[in-house]
């Protein structure tokens, strides 16, 4: 099934669910499905149970951080210049607000097919970063969603055990974000002679 077909099936099966087919510019270029976060869990169940897809295996879950982006397009407009209509080029700038994204790569072991790529996006990068956890559908997302929570700061609602995975408890930032600045080293100036030299200097 093509992503467009899957999209129309999801939208038909789940009322109110909006799915966007996100294009992919790479050479094989498989497009992905961006599902709105309110219906992501339902859509995931649908994909797993769909008899033609049977996506029983969620292989990979990846977090992505998209900063605010400015896109400038050149648009041709017709303008009246000195009373004569002429074609002129104008640059229009549009702003894409930043957001965080969880990307799920789904395969079917039963049908030996895949992948179908599912994306769930947060509203912004700062205070509205909740998306539903898909761990109830595929348990393989359990540690991977914890890792994304840890490194990107996406809050997965409904996750059974949402704690940091790799960084230590008490760490506050999210080091995989694109604007992450590591804290200054607080070890103080190092004595090149080491501990022995320090002791010797102290007498």
């Amino acid at each position: 099934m093509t992503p467009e077909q899957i999209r129309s099936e999801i939208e038909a099966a789940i009322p109110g669910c909006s799915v966007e087919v996100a294009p992919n510019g790479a050479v094989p270029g498989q497009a992905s499905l961006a599902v709105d976060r309110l219906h992501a869990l339902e859509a995931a169940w649908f994909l797993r149970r769909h008899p033609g897809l049977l996506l029983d295996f969620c292989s990979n879950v990846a977090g992505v951080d998209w900063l605010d982006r400015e896109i400038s397009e050149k648009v041709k407009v017709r303008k009246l210049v000195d009373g004569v209509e002429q074609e002129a080029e104008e640059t229009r700038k549009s702003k894409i607000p930043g957001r965080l994204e969880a990307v799920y790569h789904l395969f079917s072991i039963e049908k030996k097919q895949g992948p179908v790529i599912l994306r769930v996006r947060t509203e912004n990068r700062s205070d509205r970063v909740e998306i539903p956890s898909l761990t109830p559908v595929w348990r393989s997302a359990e540690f991977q969603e914890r890792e994304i929570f840890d490194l990107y700061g996406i809050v997965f609602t409904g996750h059974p055990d949402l704690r940091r995975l790799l960084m230590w408890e008490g760490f506050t930032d999210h080091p995989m974000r694109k604007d992450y600045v590591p804290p200054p080293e607080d070890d103080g100036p190092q004595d090149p002679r080491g501990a022995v030299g320090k002791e010797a200097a102290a007498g």
Partner: protein
Amino acid sequence: MISSLKEMPREAGETGGMAGSGAGSQLLEVAMGPHHPSTHGVFRMDVQLEGERVVRLKPVFGYLHRNHEQIAEKTSYLGSMPYTDRLDYLCSMSNNWAYALTVEKLTGLQPPERAEYIRVIMAELTRVQNHAGLIGFLLQDMGASGTPLMYAFREREKILDLFEWVSGARMMCNYMRFGGVRVDLPEGWVEGALAFVERAPRFLDEYEGLLRNSEIVMARTQGVGLLPAELAVNAGVTGPMLRASGVNYDLRKVDRYGVYDRFSFRVPLGEKGDVYDRYMMRLLEMRESVSILAQALRDLPGGPILDPKSKLRGLRPKAGEVYGRIEAPKGELGFYLISDGSTNPYRYRVRPPSLINLTVLEDMCLDRSVADVVVILGSVDIVLGEVDR
């Protein structure tokens, strides 16, 4: 080893290391690791015990975390190739291949036939030494001190000699390139590899006969750490562990990446999904790997080893994204790359089979004794360089 644990949310009424819960029972919290010998690295399991019985087990990660993914996002595509060696540091050749394959999918490079064969040979040699080593460690954890592991390492040395001969390094090979391999096989290498392959069945017979029918090994492994097929699939378990539960899913057969469609080999499957099945799975897979090796060395074609379009420096793939995966010795090793058209990846993600296979560790260990936890963990096959990245 005994400590009170910060990470475990306490239930009402519990106070410290020893805490009462319910009438007459006492729960003991034990932190196994990060320096427990059975973890073979820095990994911790927070275990709650009722007597000897495990009632809860939470793995704790991150002791070897070095933010591999972010380092890779700040360097060029080729710049992370040597760093992939350090993920699963026993299987650097497979890691190289997975990464090279993903970038080739992103850029459309096509490795020449000879390079594809060389990759298969390297990957299968890697699988043999990984599985031999794993069985050695597993048996060592059960108390068979030394002998099986030394047998495995004797063979592993021969494979590492071959790796060193071709790439200059025994473990950190950094051998694959986008669109091929770095250097051609040196003179005499194929004969050396053939000599290994010829002797390998004798080693496998010896290694299998060593403890396969041992009563102690059977008692410690049969019916221990059961993993039902449905749970294994749902939890994303891959590799020999998944097949030990009876699920026929081998990416060499499913994706047919590289030139795997040209070799005839079988995919062994387990029945029960216990530790014994996982142990047997590795023994059987080594035999199939040796058979693939013999076929690949026999059919190895001549010709170039690198796609002429391959650029070592200044690689700028078109903006887009790709997910590539191979059947690494430990399971499905995947790379997810997003390119924004610049010289370094916008997003670089490793799908680590070792980490995801640990999702079911608690399910396998519940109601078993601490001694079984050691054996079950040993049968998962983890390398902490890959778990924590």
